[in-house]
């Protein structure tokens, strides 16, 4: 299908799929008019990870505040909105329900169309705030919940060609961080620690079957834990910085190689990287180098747009809106949701 991306649209996005309560207004799918995020990182840190019930409760506490901030800072009124876009899934079901029901109440109150958004497509469309998408493209979405290679032939068309068979890459970061005593969330901490170390330990790379674009990180995670355990038993002093650097090296090598194979396979004109793990400095630099070598333009959103936010939901929702995707008032949140349906 053909999407007329030149038509002017104003979309309010709402995102509550995990531990960020967020609302944003986006113009034309490319310009952020406002972007309000209430992060719960500090709240979940003491639990060592996101607790779904706690997250859901905080979403109820923050939802009107972020919507108010987003609308006030956007410079537009409810009458100027073309649609409200909301993350329908995937994510924590209790958390999703707050955003979905809140969006339905707003859409009904103002008689504005409601557009359901797949969270991963949001991460992909965060790139559109940096530069226009060029098709066909390959998007690597890596976060605490996802590790997916998505092939896009045009706006609003998604095909998953590789996914993790066990842990998400970000999950592996969190677990390894916990094992070496780093606070939650582990990703940024490992990144920091690795800067002072060398990749001296040869942790495994899971390439899976010949030609497979799938990922597996549970073996790597176990290898790191076993290594630490063995060293401790032998009475060796652990070099945490080297462990972090070696682990990071292993993750980024697999992510980068598989992304390049995918890009070559579909003759991609662009490579996108999105999701929380794309904030990792090693992943960023290795991806840049590999893409440069192959002469394929690479786009990674700025750090602030890598983590969950509602501007990206509004950006993807803009495409959904132009494609004619609509939800009625019976829209429900879904913990699992196929990206191909969006």
């Amino acid at each position: 299908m053909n999407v007329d991306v030149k038509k002017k649209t104003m979309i309010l996005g709402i995102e509550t799929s995990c531990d960020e309560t967020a609302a944003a207004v986006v113009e034309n799918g490319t310009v952020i008019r406002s972007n309000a995020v209430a992060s719960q990182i500090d709240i979940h840190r003491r639990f060592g990870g996101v607790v779904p019930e706690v997250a859901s409760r905080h979403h109820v506490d923050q939802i009107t505040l972020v919507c108010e901030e987003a609308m006030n800072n956007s410079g537009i009124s409810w009458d100027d909105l073309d649609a409200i876009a909301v993350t329908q899934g995937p994510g924590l079901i209790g958390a999703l329900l707050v955003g979905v029901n809140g969006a339905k109440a707003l859409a009904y109150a103002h008689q504005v169309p409601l557009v359901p958004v797949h969270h991963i497509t949001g991460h992909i469309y965060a790139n559109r705030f940096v530069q226009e998408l060029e098709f066909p493209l390959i998007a690597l979405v890596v976060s605490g919940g996802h590790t997916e290679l998505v092939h896009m032939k045009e706006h609003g068309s998604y095909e998953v060609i590789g996914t993790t068979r066990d842990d998400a890459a970000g999950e592996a970061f969190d677990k390894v961080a916990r094992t070496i005593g780093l606070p939650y969330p582990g990703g940024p901490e490992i990144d920091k620690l690795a800067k002072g170390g060398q990749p001296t330990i040869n942790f495994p790379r899971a390439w899976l079957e010949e030609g497979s674009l799938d990922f597996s990180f549970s073996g790597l995670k176990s290898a790191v834990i076993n290594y630490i355990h063995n060293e401790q038993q032998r009475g060796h002093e652990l070099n945490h910085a080297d462990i972090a650097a070696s682990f990071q090296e292993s993750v980024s090598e697999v992510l980068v190689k598989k992304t390049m194979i995918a890009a070559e396979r579909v003759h991609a004109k662009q490579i996108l990287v999105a999701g929380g793990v794309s904030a990792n400095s090693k992943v960023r630099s290795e991806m840049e180098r590999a893409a440069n070598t192959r002469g394929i333009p690479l786009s990674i959103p700025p750090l602030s747009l890598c983590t969950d936010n509602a501007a990206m939901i509004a950006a993807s929702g803009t495409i959904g809106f132009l494609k004619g995707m609509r939800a009625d008032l019976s829209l429900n949140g879904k913990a699992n949701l196929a990206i191909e349906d969006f």
Partner: protein
Amino acid sequence: MNVLAIDTSNLVMGVAVATEQKVLGELTTNSKKNHSERLMPAIAELLEKVAIQPIDLDRIVVAEGPGSYTGLRIGVTIAKLMAWTLKKELVGVSSLEIVAQNGRYFDGLIAPFFDARRGQVFAGLYEMKDGAIVQVVPDQLVLIKDWLAELSKLNKPVLFLSNDFDKWGELLRTYPFAVLGESTQNVPRAAELARIGIQKKPVLDIHHFLPAYLRLAEAEAKWLAKQE
């Protein structure tokens, strides 16, 4: 005053539209939950049938709990967002107080409760005084055995109102002071919610209005226990 009342705190989903003088419409189901799918369409349908535009509402009244955490969040989120965005008043009412209204004219105490698993119930104690239902014991999370022991000391007949007699009816009938509500009395009515919501003061800070869960999230409780 045009009031919209919403209750999805438990199995029953109730929506009502009323004024001080009149119940304009009421919608109640007591079957499948699925409140997330059904609540917003029910609100839209009822308002349309009684020919009231959302903007013509003056106040939104919501059952604030106790009850199912998910159910509470659905009702409270929709009530909050509508009240906030339409600049209307918001009122929260105890979910147990709504059920207690069905015990009006009972000569004794009224004890609505909801099953809360692990032998516990969300329970409160009410009675009729000067024509109105007033609270005698605050809503609480309690072991049903302890609750029954406390009530038996009061030496008064107690009318139990609950949708959970399948689970607890047999136990209750072993207590001589216990009277079990009829099926129609056990279902909270959104029109009653609207009526008592009209009499209460609206919340001052809509942003931070939250369900009355009456129980910490499990992870929070464990974390607090570990700090001691």
